[in-house]
């Protein structure tokens, strides 16, 4: 039966007149290189319209402001990653100002505003113990330690070899999706060994990257935190969801000194233990 079915399919296919294949391979390679360049530059949303970039300086007054003495990296505090509810008093990104509540589903999107960036001081000496090559599992390990209290679930990694992870965080209003990616820039920004440049973008037409925070770090590492207003594709839709973090909370995560192409060995080992196998998304 298998052969007959295949023969029937091929017979019908043979009647087709496909267009020339063209330079599919060359175009794929050119597109791939372009995407890599964009990633290296921290540029976002290739092919998507960027509604605007919110002025970070205005958003992050106080300890996050560039001229306010810098921000200390969030304190480390263990929080085993699991689907269980994070216990009360679990770690929050310390050093962050009082955090605003996540935007509720259906609430108006942040205004598209002026485009600018800001710089913050990070504690580059923090958490620099023995290092190992960064892994997706280590990223999830660190991310779960940095999140505000809530139930985490739906851990995942991107297809391919990118350092790009996903989880849901439910802080009592239903799950919201967060994705974090990390890459090495072409060259480190040249404004000091302990300063990171930050951008916050709101993508009006991209619910997976409704808000995107990028931290361009002194060693050239780019850490990107995506706050979604929908959940991952479930086979039928990207179900709308509330934002699980505010931009300030995402910034506090992105500037943590422990992100990097190498990460603390304890994070890598703990990640491998807690996330031995991760499903792929997108």
């Amino acid at each position, binding site marked *: *039966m*298998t052969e*007959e*079915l*295949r023969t*029937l*399919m*091929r017979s*019908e*296919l043979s009647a*087709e007149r*496909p*267009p020339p*294949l*063209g330079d*599919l*391979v060359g*175009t*794929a*390679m050119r*597109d*791939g290189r372009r*995407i*890599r360049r964009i990633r290296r530059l921290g540029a976002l949303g290739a092919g998507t319209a960027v509604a605007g970039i919110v002025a970070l300086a205005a958003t992050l007054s106080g300890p996050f402001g560039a001229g306010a003495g810098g921000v200390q990296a969030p304190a480390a505090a263990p929080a085993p990653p699991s689907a269980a509810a994070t216990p009360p008093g679990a770690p929050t990104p310390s050093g962050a100002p009082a955090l605003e509540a996540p935007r509720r589903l259906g609430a108006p999107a942040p205004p598209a505003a002026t485009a600018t960036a800001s710089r913050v001081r990070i504690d580059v000496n923090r958490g620099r113990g023995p290092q190992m090559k960064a892994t997706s599992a280590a990223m999830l390990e660190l991310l779960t330690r940095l999140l505000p209290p809530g139930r985490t679930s739906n851990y995942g990694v991107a*297809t*391919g*070899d*990118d350092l790009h992870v996903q989880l849901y965080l439910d802080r009592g209003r239903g799950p919201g999706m967060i994705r974090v990616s990390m890459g090495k820039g072409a060259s480190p920004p040249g404004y000091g060994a302990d300063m990171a440049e930050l951008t916050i973008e709101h993508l009006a037409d991209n619910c997976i990257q409704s808000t995107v925070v990028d931290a361009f770090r002194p060693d050239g590492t780019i850490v990107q935190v995506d706050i979604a207003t929908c959940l991952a*594709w479930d*086979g*039928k*839709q*990207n179900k709308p969801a509330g934002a699980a973090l505010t931009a300030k909370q995402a910034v506090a995560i992105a500037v943590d000194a422990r992100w990097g192409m190498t990460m603390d060995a304890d994070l890598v080992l703990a990640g491998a233990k807690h996330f031995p196998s991760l*499903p*792929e998304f*997108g």
Partner: protein
Amino acid sequence: MTDDEAFAEFAHAQAERLRTTAFMLCRDWHLAQDLTQTALTRLYLGWRKAAQADNLVAYAQKILLRAYLDHRRRRSSTESATGVLREGGYRESPDLRLTMMDALAQLPPRDRAIVILRYFEDYSVEQTAEVLDVPASVVKSQTKRSLAKLRELLAADQLALFG
């Protein structure tokens, strides 16, 4: 051989096959071209990991399938209208008889993919399950259901194939 050279060699060898699979899924050559382009770009971006796959062709097919399902997610009805089920009577005239491709188009996207992988690409149940990220039991049950559906749709002279 550099990564780029290795990718180019693989992609040149497999592009036509990938596009044919894409066409089987969507029945639109232009969309098939786009899906193949997307799949190859994703493959290029993750080439170092892909190159370590036990079955690189299956890995590429997996990316293609995901590109197709992503596309289905983003659009509502841009696929070929041949996917619309013709109401009763199509077996009464040979001219109105459904082709195999028409019948395949009646299946839900994942079921269609299962049939194409199993019977066009000749993948095993396990390989199909791996490509589609579903349990083997789902592949088995959906295959059975899909063949029954195809049997129901196709004209009598084609049914013999499913004996």
